[in-house]
């Protein structure tokens, strides 16, 4: 396995919040979505990977190397797209690029010019005059112009309309075509990932819920609907985030096959989206 990113039991404690034992791997050629509600620890995880904050314990390896000891070599090969603006607002795109490019040994001016053209970005416009979508695309153009093998994006789609989000997904598909690059992509907007993600890592309240291939997750978690009379204590135990209303209940389950066998036409089993899975698990059984 060629893991380009590896986290083993990474923890970080703050006064009010802690991230506990986060572990996952990303292989090259694949896209991983990092999901969870606001404040779950997605951005903290990404900041830890980028060494913007210090971890308390655990291990982070990027391209098989220690992310701190080989920080410069490792960062040369990471393309980072951040949700907040970290550019000088008064510069235009060209001027800002001229500041950033020299930091990278492998800066590829041709690739940059190509992306600017494809993304339709106005090089002479000041950064503060760009729309949100343009800023994200500019950020992505920079990230894709220094031969990076790992693209890390923190909430790249937040605040963007569905058309630009879809355009971004098309770009990401292009990035992984050569089988050499991997993408880690955090979002609370799970519809972006329903299609494109190969793996999903779900963090809730600082804890890992799962890190698995999306197809396995979709196969495992199903929505069950039925009448409240079947909700015995035992059945309740096999359901997640039960929501009862006057006429019945809805819940998430990993036991859909057994439940269907037992209750047959009394219940309905439906496919869940990533959004459903997130909602039911976060709700839990209170």
């Amino acid at each position, binding site marked *: 396995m060629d893991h380009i990113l590896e986290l083993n039991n990474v923890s970080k404690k703050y006064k009010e919040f802690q991230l506990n034992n986060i572990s996952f791997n990303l292989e090259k050629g694949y896209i991983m979505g990092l999901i969870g509600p606001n404040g779950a620890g997605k951005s903290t995880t990404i900041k830890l990977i980028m060494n913007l904050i210090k971890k308390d314990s655990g291990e982070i390896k990027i391209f098989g190397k220690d992310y701190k000891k080989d920080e410069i070599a490792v960062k040369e090969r990471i393309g980072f797209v951040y949700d907040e603006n970290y550019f000088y607002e008064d510069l235009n795109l060209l001027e800002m690029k001229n500041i950033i490019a020299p930091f990278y040994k492998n800066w590829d001016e041709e690739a940059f010019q190509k992306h600017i053209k494809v993304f339709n970005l106005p090089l002479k416009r000041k950064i503060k005059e760009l729309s949100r979508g343009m800023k994200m695309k500019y950020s992505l153009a920079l990230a894709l112009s220094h031969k990076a093998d790992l693209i890390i994006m923190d909430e790249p789609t937040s605040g963007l309309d569905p058309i630009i989000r879809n355009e971004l997904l098309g770009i990401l598909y292009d990035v992984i075509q050569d*089988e050499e690059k991997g993408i880690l992509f955090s979002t609370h907007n799970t519809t972006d990932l329903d*299609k494109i993600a190969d793996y999903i890592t779900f963090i809730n309240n600082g804890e890992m819920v799962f890190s698995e291939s999306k197809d396995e997750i979709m196969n495992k978690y199903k929505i069950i609907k039925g009448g409240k009379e079947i909700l015995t204590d035992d059945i309740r135990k096999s359901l997640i985030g039960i929501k009862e209303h006057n006429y019945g209940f809805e819940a998430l389950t990993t036991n859909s096959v057994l439940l269907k066998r037992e209750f047959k036409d009394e219940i309905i089993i439906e496919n869940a989206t990533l959004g459903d899975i997130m909602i039911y698990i976060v709700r839990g059984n209170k």
Partner: protein
Amino acid sequence: MRIIIQNGLNQPIYDQIRGQIKSLILKGELSEGEQLPSIRNLAKELQISVITTKRAYEELEREGFIETVAGKGSYVAAQDKELLREKKLQIIEERLQGAVIEGRQLGLTIDELYEILKILYGEVE
């Protein structure tokens, strides 16, 4: 090559792809030695994940319909006897299905259809 993915079906997407490619091969629309799109290209075109197309290709490979050459890509495999048999069986099923549908429209029972089939079977040496 035509592949149409239907969302919200109980049949997983990888299985839809597997089934459709298999049927294209059986019908002869994809011929022996023909190159299939790469798993990443197919994922991009269909806007699904790479893992899903990979799984579909792996299943097709296991069933002997396609072959993958590392670093080169996947090709429609030479069809062996079993494959040919399956191909022919599928054609037979399709034709019988047509007969069954017509028979039902006429109100024939399965026994009456069976009688016809038995006579026909006996006639052909």
